[in-house]
């Protein structure tokens, strides 16, 4: 639709696009309050209409219709806009911790540590990209490999301790469901550790007897019981998701966010 431009003219075009966006901004601001909700509903519908039409429109011999070529550019635009949204989270985090530092609330020093970590890895990351040398690479790796990766793995491994406590509480619930759940969990765990496998190591891994080896039972539970049960749950999720998508697309969804006056 548009043609690429090079040289100094490019910046004029970019400034022109930004100026046009500014004009659109002021036009939008001039829209009366009563028309704002219908406008939001219209934009939701049109945005959804593209993918819905692309899906339902008959395709040619190449498996594509007139809308198909726009899928990739649209996906690229979505990724770019989503990337801009990251700042919302950073802003929210920064505002909470900047306030803590400014008012010197209890534990404000930890907020300083948070900012130090944030700037350290972001700056060294950018330096590594734009000024690649061994020094910048090593400093980035210090924060990434030494810091972030080890903190990440440790934080998730801590859950192991809390899972044990959760299992203990679950053991105390005496019902058929809890018994089935724990028996299944116990067999699956036993089948994945050497100690558990050693228990039935004397049973030959051939013929009918192989079905009594703990690792085979665990594998059978995972593939023959777990898979279909989760498949059924997945079907339910899919149908529910489709219904929710339809409500969103047609702006039928209700709630504090959707009912608020604009």
């Amino acid at each position, binding site marked *: 639709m548009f043609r690429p431009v090079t040289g100094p003219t*490019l910046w004029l075009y970019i400034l022109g696009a930004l100026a046009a966006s500014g004009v659109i*901004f002021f036009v939008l601001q001039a829209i009366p309050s009563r028309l704002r909700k219908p406008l939001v509903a219209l934009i939701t519908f049109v945005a959804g209409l593209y993918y819905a039409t692309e899906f339902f429109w008959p395709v040619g011999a190449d498996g594509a219709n007139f809308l198909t070529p726009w899928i990739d550019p649209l996906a690229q635009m979505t990724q770019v806009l989503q990337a801009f949204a990251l700042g919302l989270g950073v802003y929210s985090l920064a505002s909470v911790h900047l306030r803590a530092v400014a008012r010197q609330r209890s534990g404000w020093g930890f907020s300083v540590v948070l900012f130090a970590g944030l700037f350290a890895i972001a700056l060294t990351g950018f330096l590594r990209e734009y000024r690649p040398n061994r020094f910048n690479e090593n400093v980035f790796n210090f924060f990434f490999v030494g*810091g972030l990766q080890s903190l990440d793995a440790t934080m998730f491994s801590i859950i192991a301790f809390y899972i044990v406590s959760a299992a203990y509480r679950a053991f105390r619930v005496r019902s058929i469901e809890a018994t089935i759940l724990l028996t299944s*969990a116990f067999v699956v765990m036993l089948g994945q550790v050497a100690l558990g496998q050693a228990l039935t190591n004397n049973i030959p891994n051939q013929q009918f007897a192989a079905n009594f080896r703990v690792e085979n039972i665990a594998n059978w539970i995972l593939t023959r019981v777990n898979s279909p049960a989760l498949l059924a749950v997945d079907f339910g999720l899919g149908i529910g998701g489709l219904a929710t998508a339809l409500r969103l697309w047609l702006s039928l969804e209700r709630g504090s966010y959707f009912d608020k006056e604009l």
Partner: protein
Amino acid sequence: MFDFLTNPGAMRTANVWFAALCTLGLYSILYRENRFFRFFEHLFIGLATGYAVYTTWNDTLRPRWWDPMVAEGRWWWAFALPAGLLFYLIYSRKYSWMSRLIFAVFFGFAAGQAFQGFAAYYFPLVRSAINVPLVPAAGAAAAPGAYALTPMAGVLNNLLFLFIVISVMTYFFFSFEQKGPVAGVARMGRYLLMFAFGAIFGSTVMARMSLLIGRTDFLINDWIRQTVFRLPG
């Protein structure tokens, strides 16, 4: 002064010491809430956020937005900047309604993609679930010593597969009151769900345990043995 920063051996030692301190710092919560833990907890959040900022620019915005716009002259990508900035109007009392416009675009896209996603993901799933062979294949003799592969075992497993799918779906069917045999199938569905949840629970425990073993191995071998006592690995 900072020569060690270009020395691979020295940097490895620094990385291991830093990683060990981070690991011990987070594990200190297992004793009780303490300042050492809070320090590393905040450092973790800061590092994770900073890394997200770095990768968002480096992996998404630069190759997909900045470079096409500036290096390839596709000036129309400039419209993405004000569109992306619409998100931030949510913090403005006067203009916050405009942030709805960009959220509306995403709601619409997500809703439209749900049709495509449903067809692309769930149709093959339904097909794979109902298209399981229930009759033994003629002449498909079992290989010696491979009981699990015999046709009859496969048929029984497929029947079980279908039964589990149907009974679990029945359990989630709330459009009418479940009575008689339907209630029985639904109850069986609940028990089978517990079986599945137990399997997931067991797998999750094992995954977390393997992470724990990994960190313990790092502390004992990489840090204490090889870095503190300089013993061979």
